[in-house]
């Protein structure tokens, strides 16, 4: 028994998405960043960790198009390899936040009652807390490592997923096809997995694309503060931090990773905005 389209996106959303030029700009920017991350060693075969003290803080040249840092490491190689870390941490933390957050939201919406009330007010508190401060506190408590960073960023982004999953669950559980399933004696788990989750997936995916941008921004901010992945691994935030210490002598060190973050986050925001406008019929009025 297949579920009828309940909260599925309004039809023709791919056409609307393709008709929006800013969505295309977003797709192009993100594709460029992902390709650069995947092909890092092919595009620029220098080792991002190899130090060469004789060539430290060199301005951009043909051999080092973006110059070298305090340890004489090639900035372009570090920039490309850092893209992998940023995208990986962003993707893992969003996947974690999406899974747990949606599960909480669906449980609250489906079960209702005091459980729903308690979860909703807890979410309000979590939602109003600044993402950066929350992430900072969690990493400070757990200690900086790549795994802890993923957990910390995921915690800061649980609430939006829970919220987005909760509201449609409440509508869906009263719909005829769910009632019919219940009358047939289906278990709650089956009703949720087969009939509710597929119907709210599109909204959750839009939220994921928008919050991936925030996840990457949070990772960069934590690395900049010194709570990110430990050196010598290259991260954009960490590179800006190192560049910032030499900002008077070698301003290009901070400039390149700054632009990389900007391009990635802007691309994701454009993509997420385009998806939301295409899928959500209410947003299309704008």
């Amino acid at each position, binding site marked *: 028994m297949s579920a009828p389209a309940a909260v599925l996106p309004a039809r023709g959303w791919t056409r609307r998405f393709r008709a929006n030029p*800013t969505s295309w700009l977003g797709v192009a920017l993100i594709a460029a960043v992902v390709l650069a991350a995947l092909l890092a060693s092919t595009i620029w075969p220098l080792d991002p960790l190899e130090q060469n003290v004789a060539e430290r803080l060199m301005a951009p040249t043909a051999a080092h198009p973006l110059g070298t840092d305090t340890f004489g490491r090639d900035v372009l190689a570090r920039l490309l390899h850092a893209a992998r870390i940023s995208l990986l941490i962003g993707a893992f933390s969003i996947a974690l936040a999406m899974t747990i957050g949606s599960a909480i939201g669906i449980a609250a919406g489906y079960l209702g009652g005091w459980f729903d009330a308690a979860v909703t007010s807890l979410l309000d508190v979590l939602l109003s807390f600044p993402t950066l401060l929350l992430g900072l506190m969690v990493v400070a408590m757990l200690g900086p490592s790549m795994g802890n960073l993923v957990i910390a960023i995921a915690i800061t982004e649980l609430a939006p997923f829970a919220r987005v999953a909760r509201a449609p669950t409440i509508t869906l559980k009263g719909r005829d096809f769910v009632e019919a399933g219940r009358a047939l004696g289906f278990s709650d788990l089956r009703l949720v997995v087969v009939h509710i989750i597929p119907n709210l997936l599109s909204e959750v995916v839009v939220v994921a694309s928008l919050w991936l941008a925030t996840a990457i921004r949070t990772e960069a901010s934590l690395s900049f503060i010194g709570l990110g992945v430990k050196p010598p691994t290259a991260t954009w935030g960490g590179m800006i931090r190192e560049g910032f210490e030499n900002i008077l002598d070698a301003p290009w060190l901070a400039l390149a990773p700054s632009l990389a973050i900007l391009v990635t*986050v802007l691309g994701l925001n454009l993509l997420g905005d385009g998806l939301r406008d295409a899928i959500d019929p209410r947003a299309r009025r704008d």
Partner: protein
Amino acid sequence: MGEFLLRRLALAVPTLLLAMTAVFLLARVVPGDPALVILGDQATQEALLALRVKLGLDRPLPAQYLDFLGGILRGDLGRSLITGKSVWAEVLAVIPYTLELTLAAIFLGVLFGVPLGVYAAVHRNALPDTLTRLFSLAGLSFPAFVSAVLLLLVFAIQLRWFPVISAPRAGDVLDHLRNLALPAANLGLIMTAYVTRVTRSSMLNVLGEDYVRTARAKGIGRRAVLWRHALRNALIPVATVVGLYLGTLIGNSVLTEIVFNRPGLGKLILGALNQRDYTLLQGLMVFFAGLIVLANAATDIAYGLIDPRVRYR
């Protein structure tokens, strides 16, 4: 109105309790021993035990929880492990700097964001609208430290219009403003992007309302309809959003203060982190959680004052 005020304030109490409980759990239940985090891997068992006793971490969890809540009720947020000063004293010493920066950012954001948002809404889907939307999305995409570093590179290092490190001479108002300019511009830029976006979408909603059409039909001039009838109502959600944005603004001011080397809450948190000042950190978390819950309540109350319909919901 009085009833609405009381009801909203009463609602803040359980929220506050929940927030405090969350802070307590975050500091206790997450894996990792605070004593070990503070003293490092090399610490002896005796030293670890002594610190645990000093922090009260050797007592059962419910007792710790009651102590924690009792302290908050008495207005006691604890003392810094390093300086021995109370958390309140540490916060009060730096809060004027953060407040000044935050207020300047909100002022700049409203000053530029509201007209830009109205302009974009009126010219909807035309070139100025697209440009404004791209600008505001770019503004929201910048992590606050990236825009801060870029502003510093251009205006302090290349053009030398402003000092690289904020250290105003005491009593010199002009020098004070020169030092505030770049950090405030940095936060103001992000705030402008945010206010522009909200004003635009709120204006678009209001422009489709019946009372705007009625006003036009009565022959009221375009400008008067726009500014007196539409904008007034469009500003209600903007006010709410500015209030709700306070949390993010505080987060961004942390990054801004670090880049411009300005004293403030941000530098206080960073110092506590670097020195593993666990008690100061926990006190600051309680302070922030309280501040944000109260700011949300205040925003709701302001909303109720502007829009009478809200009070009866």
